């Protein structure tokens, strides 16, 4: 019988020194399903630029934090996000090696995060307000990464479909750390700003941009895939099928989570299970290898 120990709280967040070897991972790592594979792959194209942006914004926020525990959490969060960005970057190189040139889309993701959402040359109070605004966006995005992390840890349909184990370990290691640190961005926003209308606006902007990026990213991958060669047109509408099969999150699940986010008493801790995340990290091949 497995010991029931209860939900651990007050965890110290620490980056894990993981490494992945992509050489044996097939292009369509969900076998015979390039549509579902690429719906997940959009994530790989957005994450390196996106998470490096999280790191830059949060580093700028560290000196403003007037709560020792939150500062420690933010520093742990930064280290974990930096490792996520580096790991997904490795996947992108592997895509290019296999003839799927993701660079045009990655350049657009870099434009979005580095230029549009960069520091915009502001100073003084305006710089501070823009920092708060970007933290509100990160808190909204982190709501989704936590929800997706919880989803991937429980996505047994991917195992049944024969998805590549190395890729699943990357996604689940990442997902488990997202669940582990799911409260940090929201708490940082509540500490530095906390206004409800700002949260709502950030969520509206996040939904708009993530939907557009997914639509454009999936269309691009389906067109650029050397095997599919554009014969199937990409787009988020495919989630109706893949979501029902459990190969990607479903629109209904994501929509319900947005409803919870919009409640004034929202707490990210109610999304997902720290205990499950730790249990996965305890047996993740990459996270275990980092300890040996």
């Amino acid at each position, binding site marked *: 019988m497995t010991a029931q120990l209860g939900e651990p709280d007050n965890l110290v967040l620490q980056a894990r020194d993981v490494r992945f070897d992509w050489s044996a991972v097939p292009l369509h790592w969900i076998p015979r399903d390039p549509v579902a594979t690429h719906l997940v792959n959009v994530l790989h194209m957005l994450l390196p630029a996106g998470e490096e942006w999280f790191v830059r914004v949060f580093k700028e926020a560290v000196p403003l934090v007037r709560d020792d*525990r939150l500062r420690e959490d933010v520093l742990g969060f930064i280290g974990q996000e930096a490792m996520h960005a580096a790991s997904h970057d490795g996947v992108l190189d592997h895509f290019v090696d296999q003839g799927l040139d993701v660079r045009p889309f990655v350049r657009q993701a870099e434009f979005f995060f580095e230029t549009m959402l960069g520091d915009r040359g502001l100073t003084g109070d305006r710089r501070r307000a823009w920092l708060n605004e970007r933290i509100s966006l990160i808190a909204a995005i982190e709501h989704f990464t936590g929800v997706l992390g919880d989803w991937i840890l429980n996505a047994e349909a991917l195992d049944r479909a024969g998805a590549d184990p190395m890729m699943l370990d990357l996604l689940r290691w990442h997902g488990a750390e997202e669940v582990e640190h799911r409260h940090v961005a929201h708490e940082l926003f509540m500490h530095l700003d906390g206004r409800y209308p700002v949260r709502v606006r950030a969520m509206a902007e996040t939904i708009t941009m993530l939907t557009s990026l997914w639509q454009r990213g999936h269309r691009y991958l389906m067109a650029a895939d050397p095997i599919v060669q554009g014969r199937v047109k990409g787009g988020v509408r495919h989630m109706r099928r893949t979501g029902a099969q459990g190969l990607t999150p479903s629109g209904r699940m994501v929509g319900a989570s947005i409803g919870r986010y919009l409640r004034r008493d929202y707490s990210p801790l109610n999304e997902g299970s720290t205990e499950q995340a730790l249990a996965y990290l305890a047996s993740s091949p990459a996270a275990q290898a980092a300890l040996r």
Partner: protein
Amino acid sequence: MTRMSYPADLYGRRDRDRFWVAVNTFFTSVQRVRMLRSPVLPPVREVDRSADLVVRSVRKVAEDVVALTLAAPDGGVLPAWHPGCHLDLHLPSGRRRQYSLCGDPSDRRTYRIAVRRLPDGGGGSVEIHDEVTEGDVLKIQGPRNAFPLIPRDRYLFIAGGIGITPILPMVQAAHRAGADWRLIYTGRTRETLPFLDELAGLPSARITIRTDDTDGIPTSADLLADATPGTAVHVCGPAPMIDTIRAAFPSDATLHYERFAPAPVTNGHPFEVELKRSGRVLQVPPTRSALDVIKEEQPDVAYSCRQGFCGTCKVSVLSGDVDQRAPSDPPGDDTMLICVSRATKGRLTLDL
């Protein structure tokens, strides 16, 4: 705002992708309109998470080890904790030290820690042994957990000496949960091992006590005999013991130890760092990292893993020769990871 360098269209049709021109133009216009008003910056409230606890008892529990029992001044309920949690103690001298909680999590009114006297340590343990007495008030923060107990049906716990402190509540939790567990508890002599009396209440067939004076220094085979497939092995002890275990760890069990202490500096030479923005020059001794020294001067400096892989503490080096010691610290660029890299000699000027 300077002119944007837009990305090209995804399919090579245009130099500037229309989608991003539209999104950025819209976004920038909205920002401009909003900037007509002066920005609203809600005040940031200081959050003090420390608490003052009274030392209720100081008890010698082994050679050179004392156990402190701490309670709220009014005897009230303390924050709950799980096995593996530690407290941060702020000592009267200003030192800050972390100690694992080694009491009973179901006792909500007291915390217990145990401290081994380390005459060659940083002075924290000696201060506790020599100066802290019953009735003193200590400022604490926490509890926090850097060593959670993983839910599993089979456990091997390995404790080296004072490393028993986080392991003891884990053993008791595993026992209470009805899990299949083993404990190996090692030390120099029996007299140096705290809490043998508390372990006596547990099934003795599950516990192996090994002391160097009668059994010799344990080998990896001695420690890992019970690391059968699927076992969660939780280890707390001196670094050489953990290294012995890591080197021989079987692939089908899982290993867990507290990772948060950075590895000690080896072959370090003293050097100076100059912080360009403040002009301050700091001395880095051979046994400390540049980050540790800089953090005292500048508590807001960003860092995370403290082991040279995450890259958070990377700073620009304006002058000086860097001894690149981090796996993710590429040679040749003008940056360094201050958590592990050092100067080859002399002084480094950093963009801080």
